[in-house]
């Protein structure tokens, strides 16, 4: 069970959180202009990387706020927590493979 540092509530057990999957996938501004393939890419397809991943997390049983986390999917180490809408932190993905 991960220990996740909610930016509002501090370190709490993973069971209080809900993972929202890959971060930095923005909803297209004009969905109608997308091809079926492009839309499917947005709705269904995720990278599932071994190594450095950026994820959305929600403190569902706490403050109910969404935030982003950078995590090593091999060691599970959480490398950074940062707000929604911020760019991902500058981490070298080659270090986390």
């Amino acid at each position, binding site marked *: 069970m991960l220990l996740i540092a909610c930016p509002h509530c501090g370190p709490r057990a993973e069971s209080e959180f809900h993972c929202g999957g890959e971060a930095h996938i923005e909803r*297209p501004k004009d969905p109608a202009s997308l091809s079926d393939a492009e839309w499917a890419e947005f709705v269904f397809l995720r990278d599932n990387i071994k190594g450095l991943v950026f994820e959305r997390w929600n403190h569902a049983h706490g403050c109910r706020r969404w935030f982003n986390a950078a995590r090593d999917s091999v060691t599970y180490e959480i490398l950074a927590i940062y707000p929604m809408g911020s760019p991902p932190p500058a981490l070298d993905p080659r270090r986390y493979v």
Partner: protein
Amino acid sequence: MAGRMRLPQGGFVAHDELLTFTFNGKTYKGLAGDTLASALLANGIHMVGRSFKYHRPRGIVSAGGEEPNALMQVGDDPRSEPNLKATQVELVDGLKAKSQNAWPSLEFDVGALNGLASRFLPAGFYYKTFMWPASAWMTYEHFIRRAAGLGVSPRQRDPDRYDKTFAHCDVLVVGGGPAGLAAALSAGRAGARVILAEQDHLLGGALLNTQGEVIDGQPARDWIAAAEAELAALPEVRVLKRTICYAAFDHNFFGLVESVTDHLPRPPENLPRKRLWKLRTKQVVYCAGAIERPLVFADNDRPGVMTASAVQSYVNRYALRPGRRAVVFTNNDSGYGAALDMKAAGIEVAAVVDARQVPAGPLTERATALGLRILGGFAIVAVEGARRVKRVRVAELSLDGKTVTGVPEAIDCDLVASSGGWNPTVHLFCQAKGKLRWDDEHACFLPDAAMQTGQQSAGAANGRFGLGSCLREGTEAGAAAAAACGFAPSDTAASQAEDRDFLPGRWIWLVPGEHPLGHKAKHFVDQQNDVTAADLKLALREGYRSIEHVKRYTTTGMATDQGKMGNVNAIGIVADEVGGHLPEVGVTTFRPPYTPVTFGVFAGRDVDNLLDPVRRTPMHAWHERNGALFEDVGQWRRAWYYPQHGEDMHAAVNREVKAVRDSLGILDATTLGKIDIQGPDAAEFLNRVYTNAWLKLGIGRCRYGLMLKEDGMVMDDGVTTRLGEKHYLMTTTTGNAAAVLGHLEDYLQTEWPDLQVYLTSVTEQFATMTLSGPSARRLLADVSDADLSPEALPHMAYTAAKVAGVPARIFRISFTGELSYEINVPASFGMAVWQTLTTAGERYGITPYGTEAMHVLRAEKGYIIVGQETDGSVTPHDLGMDWAVSKTKDFVGRRSLSREDMARPDRKQLVGLLTKDPKEVLPEGAQLVEKVLPQPPMPMLGHVTSSYHSPNCGRSIAMALVKGGLARKGETLFAPLGDGRTIACVVADTCVFFDPEGERLK
């Protein structure tokens, strides 16, 4: 004396505290401090069970949690527990134990015939024999389980209580042997918050099993006592005895089980039987010691063959003689410890058979000095004696160790102590995804790099086998762990002791016998699962290479002991056979739990009424008093129907359904999800999350909305009302309330943070009651100051008013097709208003109706229920609800609706179904086919989603999702049922079975 093999004094047992216990119905005596295994051995009993496949007699092999053979059923129903290791069961007065691996009895065992039939039970026999047909497997499995005696689960419910507790610490020390005590002391002295977990009821670990160890100039026993006293005095240190750390999870989260009362003959009422510790630590030091592995030689499973360290434990800790005349078989120095201790205890040591050509090492030298007979370069090549070792034959090994030379010599003995080296207990380290490295010198896997931060290993668990090294490494690890948590190290030096390693060794994984492998004798690798060296070689011949595949095919290491003794031997034999090096063969994955954990601790107090929270509406007591039966909807208890005068469900529901259409019904709808939505951008927000248009909804007006996920599938529906300029109230289905709120919050916070909208769940703040039926307006007018005229409050409109003197929100919306008012009042007034309405409503024949009648009423109107007519793969178009979907704006899920697949004509579409026989009611979930074939499979078109007898239509009605259903109107379909009946039905023109024009809503 407690048992004829008991020594008159010594050890860690209370010689003056006699306990009585029974084993297979016979009564014996043991001592306080005994385990069940030591008490049996003290009574001269080695044979305690029979093996899983071959039903060979089996004896106690070990003195710890690695025990493969001595599995017991302990206690009587309801406290009977199977699969307990006799080596870990603390003896209590009155304990009752039974062998479980013997049917019909330990002495006469019909399953031993399997031994004769063993050529039919080779590696992979499960796969080969029971692949097909599946029904045969069921038969075989029943027989095999009974014959194999895997223990019996108690038939009555568990009468004991279990607790869970959470804990946090700076440093967790796993294991209370010399390294663990040293680690806990140095971390504790530095001021860190330390938890030391020891599975035993005594601290000291391997020190309890040896004699003559000296630490800091004092006997080890005294040093342990001093360490325990000091730990007890340190305010931030907690020592948990009888506590097994069974699992290492992510981010230094650990699972521990503390056994609280099993060792007490009469447990006090106030204590739980066991306690689950959920522990988060900053640092962990694994000091779990090492497990001695046995040598793999011919018929090495005879009762009386034990590990050398187990023999030492029984002699030194439990003060007993496990035999009268012993042969030691070793390939390293540590077997000599057993030889020396046995000699000191008066056991005749007939010979030390040493695989090494030149036996050497500190203990070897002492044995030589004492004049023990040492056979260097020899091996045990045969063991005689079915129920107890009688004799071994020894012979000289060839130079490569693969064969034996010369004529074997027979040596009479009743005990064989074998040592094949040591396996550090790396299980938890590996569960935490730590990597192992192979140590050629000690022939064992050692912890290498930890995957998670804050993890260290110390002592034998880290390959430090000398006592001095263990103490030093433990001290350093404890100090480093404390320092990592910000505590300055104390200046106390590590305790000092002599360093005696068990090297050198000659690592032979498979000891040759008198006959070719697999002939006339068996070399057991995994005794609990009856896996032999021949089985491993067969698996390799059949093409398996990966150790994970060999494991599954042969089942080696897959029993309740998870191969704690046998796995490395198995890997060594595989490596030899494929001509590789051990680390190239690799290790199997270590998974929790380290030892079996009883289910009770996971349940804890979360049983019966505490299993799941129950949500009740403010009117719940009224429903109970009025005889309602309830159904669970999510965590809510909803009134299902209200039977009167011995009515069955059918009669009660019919009466309720008729009453609503004829006059007036009242429904408790409190459980519907309610989300308060406020802010200047609320309308824009609704417009984006609902499929229809929301920007022009006037104040005081209500609108039905469909909510999709981004994949275009229906997620929820409900009515949302504009209460004020910037204020809306959304309703959701009962079961979806939390999911919808989460969905809305997600979009608001992550996609559209620029929208100024505030969401608040108010489901429990309001009690909701629905008045439905032709008399609804009249009753409400009697008790309310609202203007209820159709002009002032038309269908799909809202007003605030007083109802029964209480401020209320009145919504004229309908889920029955009748004139209906949904009334929200503050929850604390719910019961009072409900009582006023039901009392004042008597003159209109008001009838409370439950969820079942509600379902029938809405089905008569063809109204869907999300989760019943939908299953996450249904679009608005599939439901025939295009009228609720805007064509001019974007909304969540819209783009998906124009995917090519969505226009497929053979998608499943919602249709009405009418049975040919109006009296017949289709079962919900029934599969529909075009043509009935003599037997399944037959092509299925879809299934019935809702089906009821409708008293208002005077017949049965149903809805179904059917492939291409909209084009099938008038077609006859069939529902073949499990009971052999087939119901014929016709696809109706519409789902609306009652009042299709909607006259009654006006």
